[in-house]
């Protein structure tokens, strides 16, 4: 083997072989990592009717008449109701608990924020969650309870043998 070839082999081992060994190590150690539970997708919501006369809570609870669509990026969530509401709830997932708030709804006063708090039951299949929708700074508003079940994802195109 010529000296040029030897140099090439050494450089190849150092610059390609060693990093690949490192990659194997990373893949092995990464298997022990855990990511937040998956909650993205469409959830079918069932809710109790609100008896409150508060316009803000009425508007908020009307959202629960439609499906909830959750877009998840790790712990960061964006929750949207299929009701045509323009502004999504932005929230976070901590363990199994979801906390989200809706910025400004037109029916609500400036100091009123709509808050969604729910907990996921990871054992149920399909997954389900239970929680409440409430309005801050509204003593007469009692939280509206709801329950939601995750809908199966539409089949991906392809891969279909």
């Amino acid at each position, binding site marked *: 083997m010529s000296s040029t070839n030897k140099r090439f082999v050494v450089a190849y081992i150092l610059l390609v072989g060693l990093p*690949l060994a490192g990659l194997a190590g*990373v893949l092995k150690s*990464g298997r022990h990592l855990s990511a*937040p539970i*998956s909650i993205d997708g469409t959830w079918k919501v069932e809710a109790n009717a609100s008896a409150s006369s508060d316009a803000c809570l009425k508007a908020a609870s009307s959202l629960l008449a439609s499906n909830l669509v959750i*877009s998840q*990026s790790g712990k960061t969530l964006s929750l949207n109701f299929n009701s045509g509401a323009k502004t999504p709830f932005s929230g976070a997932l901590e363990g199994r608990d979801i906390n989200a708030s809706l910025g400004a709804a037109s029916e609500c006063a400036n100091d009123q924020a709509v808050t969604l708090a729910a907990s996921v039951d990871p054992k149920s299949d399909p997954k389900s969650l239970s929680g409440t929708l409430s309005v801050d700074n509204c003593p007469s508003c009692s939280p509206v309870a709801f329950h939601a079940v995750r809908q199966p994802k539409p089949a991906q195109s392809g891969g279909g043998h």
Partner: protein
Amino acid sequence: MPNLFILTLQLAVVLAACRVVGWLFQRIGQPKVVGEMFAGIALGPSLLGWIAPHASAYLFPPSSLGFLNALSQVGVVVFMFLVGLGINPGELKKEGHAAVLTSHVSITAPFVLAAFLSLYLYPRLSDDRVHFTSFALFMGAAMSITAFPVLARILDERNMLRSRLGTVAIACAAVDDVTGWCILAYIVVLIRSAHSAHSIWLTIGGILVFGLAMIHGVRRLLRGFESVYRKKGAISENLMALMLLLVLASSLFTEYLGIHLLFGAFLMGAIMPKEAKFVRYVLDRFETITVTLLLPLFFAFTGLRTNIAAVKGPEMWMYCGLIILVATLGKLGGSTLASWLSGMPLREAAGLGTLMNTRGLMELVILNIGLDIGVISPALFSMMVMMALFTTFMTTPVLSLICPREMLERGKIEAERLAPAVSLREGEGAAA
């Protein structure tokens, strides 16, 4: 049924936006395709949906996006065939050990760094439906890709295609793309097989048989196209239709096998004859509509899925910065180091690293597949799109800084070494 008025309006708006922004980017020394990518993002929720939500909702109602996507995917299938047609990994052999080392390091360095970054990002940006291995391998493949066609365009615009730097860069990018797509195929199989009743080994076996049949069987038959072209100087419409049918059949087969339509199209292009004039001829026939109309639709569709607002707060922006840093360090740094150690002067080596860091449209194609199969989340998709735009945008100015034109003149090599890949330079479509 599609709403034809809305669909036609979408086509018109996307076409106009891509042309105008592409022209503006050319004025500032960028390849047109970079402007078209930015135009696509601007038509999505990141800009149009933010400043004019009503106009955006009217122009791109959710019910219309399926048709827009279908049209854009047809464009990407043909485009991937053209990319496969333009590349010639055999060119790497001509460039010797230095190019082999540079090419392989330009894949492994970003790949390994991306896997390390995945240790940090996985618990923060993924969920338990995605396995760490799939996540890390996808991040690695996405960071190690090089946009071969954009690279060819940049080299052509700078009159560098025949320079030593240009030929090595083209050869390395071709190998990078083939390797990247093979890894991605494996990841797609891995993820799809998790939701399939069939064994992963059955799928892998099917793919191997298909690949071998294409390389050792169909490839020989394809030489007939080149023979006809050599004899007649042209290929009849019927034969062009047959070629397109073969592309579609190959695409359908890979989709059926559980990978993706695009792999079949790419493979069909890769095994086509590589005689320069023949390649140029086929590119000319297919490029105009694909690149002028259908690819801008893909940019727009990607833009509609990209929401920069999903990258919220300093923490998310730090993740985004880390992704850009790691992608650049791995690709630019790795390629520079390997080519410098192989004996290339440092400035030229840095120029090569800069070129290899161009990700462009190829990155967007891969990211869309990643989002479709659920291996990356919407926020991570947006971050990776920003990384693709950043690394592609930075190529031209950084290259001008590192490798002034007069320096490149010294590295010119003979015109006879014009590779098939080089033929991508002539058409405007090569910009894609």
